[in-house]
């Protein structure tokens, strides 16, 4: 059981911000679930702290990634050339 879930964890081949924000959340959630299953099966009692960790990661992973990319946009990091659409430019005044 732990084997099946544990294989899902992240080696994370790194496609910059987006990839790391999403795939690391998924991977860490998988590892936490594996630990919950393992300790529940071993001790017979549910580890409450690990449940808290899983819940916390589930909320904060995307929030952190979002805040970082938002900050990167605000200080004017250029998008790479192939992406021509900049939908946020209408809402955010360009910083000089």
């Amino acid at each position, binding site marked *: 059981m*732990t*084997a099946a879930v*544990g*294989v899902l*964890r*992240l*080696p*994370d*081949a*790194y496609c*910059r*911000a987006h990839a*790391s*924000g999403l795939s*690391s*959340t998924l*991977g*860490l959630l998988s*590892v*936490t679930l*594996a*630990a919950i299953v*393992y*300790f529940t099966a*071993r*001790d017979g009692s549910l*580890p409450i*702290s*690990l449940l*808290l*960790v899983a819940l*916390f*990661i589930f909320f*904060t*992973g995307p*929030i*952190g*990634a979002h*805040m*970082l*990319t*938002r*900050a*990167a946009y*605000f*200080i004017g*990091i250029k998008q790479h050339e192939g992406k021509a659409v900049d939908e946020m430019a209408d809402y955010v005044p360009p910083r000089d």
Partner: protein
Amino acid sequence: MELVVNIALTLLGFGALLCFYRVVKGPTIPDRAVGVDTLMMHVVAIILLLGIKGETRIYMDAVISIAILSFVGTTGFAKFIAKGVIIDRDRS
């Protein structure tokens, strides 16, 4: 079981090395911040797997505190990048 945990630990170590490379080499500041964030997530996962490997539950509280510290650090750094201040006092 033991083999799977070992394989996972190896891959996580390799991923942490990649993140460290991004932190050192990253061309812009947000790249480095993302690298540190992902590195902390790798550290949390490695600690969890070490807890499974050593069959002990005493690492789990450390996991909680490291996860919370990672999130607070990432948020503070993002606000610092965006505005230059972390705690903005004007409530306008």
